[in-house]
């Protein structure tokens, strides 16, 4: 319990530390003023040639509202308060009713001219704004969502939030509107958030606010979309224009002067990446979506000198891509592994004491591939049998574990029920749930010594029976700490 609290404190960024250590010292009052004002932000980004949604109308006074030319508005548009917070006051209109002055919202309800006027009046009176100050209403274009992301969102516009610090993109997530969120991509309104691997731009874990929870701000991990006609799995989506998105986020950071920033970018089907807004106090739920803490990431890059945007992206990919927990020293290029390496794997009967002295130990030279996409390293079960784990495999097989599971939750439930008994065999360290040949399976984990890059390490290996692996050993990111992977050299 105490060790868990200490671990959490080291890994996770809480609201207190975010405000004290990152927002206050790195975000000046003038920069925050720009971020909190959508019109200022648009002007600033325009100068940097960064695309933002086109503004149709700016309504500053009730008089301007009185003379609003309704006919000139397109069928779909968005109304936003200029200084709104947390998605409050944003209304998305998806279409217009034929022959009527009524506009359709993503949940199917309509608003007529009078309703919209009243909403804009409320915006002008500052009902949705920080400090309830008088505000400006923005009527802007509704982004036409990229077809790839469109299939995962319930109408509305999905966006990608990238948190940057010290000119390095630190963490990212995809926010998908749901029926509950009514077209907005705001987590608190009910949108789904999916973590994105910084290195590849591929989605990882997903979560949303727990429905029917008595507590506020409680999240729940989910595997697929929740309210589409045909729900789709959320992990493994390759975000288009990933490198461009990282570059745009860093450009926004540079232009705004915010040291710690959250940049919200949508993907328009025609225009490509379009920046929605920049945020000086981005929320911390992104950690749950990525199942990773922000604090250690921010601390790693606090004192790194970033020379350019490209350098920032490179550092992010090396450090946080695939969640490689390596040290900053390693980035300087001292420990580099090729994508495939030859490693020695030691026999089960090998004496550990002798192993340390490199004497007469039974070992085999095998090809291994480095894969940051998996956490724990993997070994082909045939090789594991060869080096002495045949009895352990026989013991494992006799339990008749199902060949596949529908989801990770079922697999975990199986492990929780039967894991202890199966792990009674001294060779089986634990059970792991893995995706193998596209199916979720439970496999045993063995602790096996290997020699990699002139270093002997006792490594946890998941024994697999995958048919499509070219190499008997795959080294996962748990064992790649302190290494850089050079993809250009193979032997």
């Amino acid at each position, binding site marked *: 319990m105490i060790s868990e609290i200490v671990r959490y404190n080291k890994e996770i960024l809480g609201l207190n530390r975010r405000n004290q250590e990152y927002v206050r010292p790195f975000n000046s009052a003038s920069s925050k003023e720009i971020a909190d004002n959508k019109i200022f932000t648009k002007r600033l980004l325009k100068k940097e040639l960064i695309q933002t949604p086109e503004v149709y109308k700016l309504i500053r006074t009730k008089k301007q509202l009185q003379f609003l030319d309704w006919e000139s508005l397109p069928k779909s548009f968005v109304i936003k308060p200029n200084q709104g917070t947390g998605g409050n006051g944003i209304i998305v209109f998806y279409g217009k009713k034929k022959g009527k002055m009524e506009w359709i919202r993503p949940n199917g309800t309509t608003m007529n001219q009078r309703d919209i006027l009243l909403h804009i009046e409320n915006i002008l009176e500052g009902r949705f704004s920080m400090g309830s100050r008088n505000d400006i209403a923005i009527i802007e274009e509704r982004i036409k969502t990229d077809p790839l992301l469109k299939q995962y969102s319930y109408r509305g516009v999905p966006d990608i939030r990238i948190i940057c610090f010290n000119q390095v993109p630190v963490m990212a997530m995809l926010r998908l509107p749901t029926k509950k969120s009514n077209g907005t991509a705001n987590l608190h309104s009910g949108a789904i958030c999916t973590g994105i691997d910084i290195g590849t731009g591929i989605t990882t874990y997903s979560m949303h606010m727990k429905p029917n929870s008595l507590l506020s701000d409680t999240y729940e991990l989910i595997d697929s979309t929740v309210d589409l006609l045909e729900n789709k799995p959320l992990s493994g989506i390759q975000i288009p224009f990933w490198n461009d998105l990282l570059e745009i986020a860093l450009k926004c950071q540079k232009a705004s002067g915010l040291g710690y920033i959250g940049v919200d970018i949508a993907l328009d089907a025609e225009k490509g990446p379009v920046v929605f807004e920049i945020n000086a106090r981005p929320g911390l739920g992104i950690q749950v979506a990525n*199942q990773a803490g922000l604090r250690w990431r921010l601390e790693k890059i606090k004192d790194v000198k970033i020379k350019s945007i490209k350098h920032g992206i490179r550092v992010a990919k090396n450090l946080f891509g695939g969640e490689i927990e390596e040290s900053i020293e390693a980035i300087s290029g001292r420990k580099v592994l090729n994508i495939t390496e030859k490693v020695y794997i030691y026999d089960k009967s090998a004496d550990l004491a002798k192993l340390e002295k490199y004497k007469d130990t039974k070992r085999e030279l095998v090809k291994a591939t480095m894969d940051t996409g998996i956490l724990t390293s993997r070994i082909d079960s045939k090789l594991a049998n060869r080096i002495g784990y045949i009895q352990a495999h026989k013991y494992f097989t006799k339990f008749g574990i199902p060949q596949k599971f529908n989801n990770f939750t079922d697999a975990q439930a199986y492990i929780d029920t039967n894991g202890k008994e199966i792990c009674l065999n001294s060779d089986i360290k634990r059970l792991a749930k893995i995706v193998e040949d596209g199916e979720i399976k439970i496999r045993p984990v063995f602790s096996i010594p290997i020699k990699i890059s002139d270093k002997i390490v006792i490594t946890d290996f998941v024994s697999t029976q995958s048919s499509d692996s070219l190499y008997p050993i795959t080294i996962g990111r748990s064992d790649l700490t302190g290494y850089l992977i050079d993809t250009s050299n193979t032997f």
Partner: protein
Amino acid sequence: MFETSKLTEWLLGSGVSQTILELLIALCIVSTIVSIARYVVGNKTYGIYAPIILAIAYSYTGLRYGLVITFVVLFTSLLSYSILRRIRMHYITRIATNYTILSIVLILFLIVINTFGFGLTNMSNISPLAFISIAALSDFFIKQYDKKSLKGSALILFGTILVAVVGWFVISRDLISDYVLNNLWIIPLLVVINILLGMFKGLRIKDYFRFRLSSREENDK
């Protein structure tokens, strides 16, 4: 109970009434409780003003009476505002109408209590200011309800009442108020505690639950 300190004696003899002094001490204590609740526990309240006023009001009404009035205020506000929401009208006029309805209901409530008792026979002796202070909670509740959601507002309301009850419990203990009244050095100590809380960077208790990460050891993807 405690020997009156020289500083307290001097203050009381220098135009500061005991009631004012007690109230100001209560203000310091409850505001510190709000700070702890916010930055250590992670409990959201309607700002700092609402829980302080509520705790002090409860100390005048007594917790039972205070909670009954709170319930009537909130129930009426919720009901009247839910109806008013459906009418197309300006925001401030809606709030004003809500207050008017609330006043009418509170008068009816006092008449009903006077007629039937319901175990609240002392209601007529309650300080009018304490009564009005609790009624003001309606504004905080409705504003939040209007800006966010009923659930969101209700959760913050719960947090506010919880902190106010803790505050009430602390300031209504004779032992505590007597002790602090005669040991005024505690007030600068509260300043120090608040400064330290202001610099606290650790995780709030709520953060541990909010940002709970599943054991990555076991999630082998």
